């Protein structure tokens, strides 16, 4: 959440925006800034301070220096949770990006039936994560689920009880939920590509596939970076869906960092250590967001629409 806010505030607060009379419009950022400071920066400082304390969430907050950090960093659960988070981020990116681009390009067409399909594809985004998780959990139940209902034994796998399968299911359900959103971004981006480019390509004799790889994909470069940033940074904060679907199990096979933080803080009552994990999460998120900005090249505002 905090990381997303950084992205939205940064351009406005850089203060270069001026109106035609030359007066600064920086004050327009004040409401956003107030919210960001109240709900982003201040809690963040609080978490940072808490990570240097020992607190069980009920009693006294006892400053304890680096005790919580030492306990957190020496816990073998931390590298494991980071590895799981990394797997979820990478796998869901690999799955979501091609699907979203293809769907987005498909939905960008003006045909009526595509508009109808777009509405259907959009439905998962309207459902709450908890509802999605409960539904999939019921469908994937090895004894009462889809396999038994339809009489198809191959669907009666131990979907959420087998570590590898459970991770796969988490990636699938996460993707199922977010592909509509990213398709929407790509749909908008594809519609912005000037038709003159395709017309010129057609005259030059390029087929549809050639057009996709030589025009559509390069023109989507910035959109891909935006969408990937949202996907990867967003995947660091996956909590609700995984919590309801697998609760981090079986064992700790799907225990991502956010879940590890929750369990440490609210189930084991170790708020200091949970805060340390929280700080690590923020740092990883910031690092990734910066990395993606770099990947996008120096000047993000430069247009890709040259020659239009």
């Amino acid at each position, binding site marked *: 959440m905090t990381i997303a806010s950084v992205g939205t505030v940064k351009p406005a607060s850089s203060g270069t925006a001026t109106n035609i009379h030359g007066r600064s419009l920086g004050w327009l950022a004040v409401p956003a800034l107030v919210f960001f400071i109240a709900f982003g920066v*201040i809690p963040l400082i609080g978490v940072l301070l808490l990570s240097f304390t020992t607190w069980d969430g009920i009693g006294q907050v006892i400053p304890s220096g680096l005790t919580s950090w030492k306990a957190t960093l020496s816990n073998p659960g931390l590298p494991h949770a980071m590895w799981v988070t990394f797997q979820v981020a990478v796998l869901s990116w690999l799955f979501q990006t091609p699907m979203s681009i293809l769907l987005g390009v498909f939905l960008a067409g003006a045909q009526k039936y595509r508009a109808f399909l777009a509405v259907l594809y959009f439905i998962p985004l309207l459902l709450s994560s908890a509802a999605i998780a409960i539904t999939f959990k019921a469908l994937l139940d090895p004894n009462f689920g889809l396999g038994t209902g339809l009489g198809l034994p191959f669907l009666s796998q131990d979907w*959420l009880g087998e570590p590898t399968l459970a991770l796969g299911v988490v990636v699938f359900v996460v993707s199922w939920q977010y592909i509509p959103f990213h398709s929407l971004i790509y749909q908008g981006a594809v519609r912005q590509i000037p038709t003159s480019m395709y017309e010129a390509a057609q005259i030059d004799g390029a087929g549809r596939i050639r057009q996709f790889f030589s025009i559509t994909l390069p023109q989507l470069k910035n959109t891909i970076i935006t969408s990937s940033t949202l996907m990867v940074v967003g995947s660091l904060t996956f909590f609700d869906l995984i919590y309801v679907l697998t609760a981090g199990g079986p064992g700790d096979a799907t225990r991502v960092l956010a879940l590890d933080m929750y369990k440490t803080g609210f189930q084991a009552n170790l708020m200091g250590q949970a805060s340390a994990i929280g700080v690590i999460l923020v740092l990883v998120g910031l690092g990734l967001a910066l990395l993606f900005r770099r990947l996008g090249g120096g000047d993000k505002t430069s247009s890709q629409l040259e020659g239009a």
Partner: protein
Amino acid sequence: MSVPVVAALAACGSSGPSSSTASGTAGAAGGGASYWYLTGQPGEGIRKGAVDRFNAANPSSQIAQTAFQNDAYKTKIKTALGAGQAPTIIWGWGGGGLKSWVDASQVEDLTSWFGENADVKSKLFPSSFGAATVGGKIYAMPVETVQPIVLYYNKSVFEKVGVQPPTSWDDIMALVPKFNAAGIAPFSLGGQSRWTNMMWLEFLFDRIGGPEVFQAAFEGKKDAWSNPDAITALTKVQDLVKADGFIKGFSSITADSNADQALLYTGKAAMMLHGSWTYGSMKSDGGDFVKGGHLGWMNFPPVAGGKGDPSNTVGNPGQYLSISAKATDAEKEVAKKFFKTGVLDDTEVKAWIDSGSIPIVNGSDSKIAGSADAEFLKFIYGVASGAKTFAQSWDQALQPAAAETLLDNISKLFQLSITPEQFATNLNAVTNS
């Protein structure tokens, strides 16, 4: 995670009455107290009934009530206590959780109150006070029912396969291949909930090594989990997992949804180790299963050569009500009045018996006779009153941080992703004092 907000709430809590719900409730003239408890029938209705009767009888001292789902409540109450926003009356499980509240000075010491009200204390099962006592002082009033863990079985399935209920651990291991050959899972298990798996260890530890094995770990003795008897118990449970003793996919089944009970009453599984509270839900959800006499039950069978007394049991010796130390004196008075006159009145006692449970009131066995569930209730009363040791559930007895490590490692043990020795090492690290 937001500290300043928590601090702000805490400030409100110490300066004014901590219960905002009570003052907002219509009819809460005079002192109003608040009370949080768990949802889920039949308990929710019985808890509500007791409060409603109390409120009707005492127009000047009202109790505002709010009910929460089990797992959500565990988090909610912790957060509320930390923020000084706890209700006047706090429902709990006693043991390690209660101790963490006591250590933070969040709950009232009720020792002297029980001294003044000896009749209240003598009304209740003495065994129920163990988990309410921290450092020799009583911090909670035991309420509701005694809930030992019971080995249930589906009689129809046993008849179909042509086998007899087990009388020893060897019987259990011999039954496993027979049920598997018949396409029926030997045991149902809601493994994702983790404490469900824990019940197996609780009994195996007790039957093999006696209650001393866990007691040593509980007291923080060095390397208590590496006791040879503990390793034997851990190995035996993994043997059962390896022999396909538990239903396929048990790691993804939750107990909260009662899916594990459904497996037993639909005949997909032959047996289930579960709390006595599941009798009531199997009765209401299982159609003809309980009423038609298809449900069988027994105490966990002995293990050959084991040191534990076969009469021993584990489970919840009671449920617990504490009073928030942050409540105003008026609120505390209402709470104490409720403890004295409202809790476990005759109507509530009867309601618990009708729901298939044994209230922790001495002599409640005399009221069993007329009940439709007399047979089961007699069994539970016998187990609860005849147990040489009635141990509290491990995750309730231990401190929260150790309990979390325990549950985590139990689920890995059942996944076969750690060995009994690794389990012992991991647990020693958190319970060694």
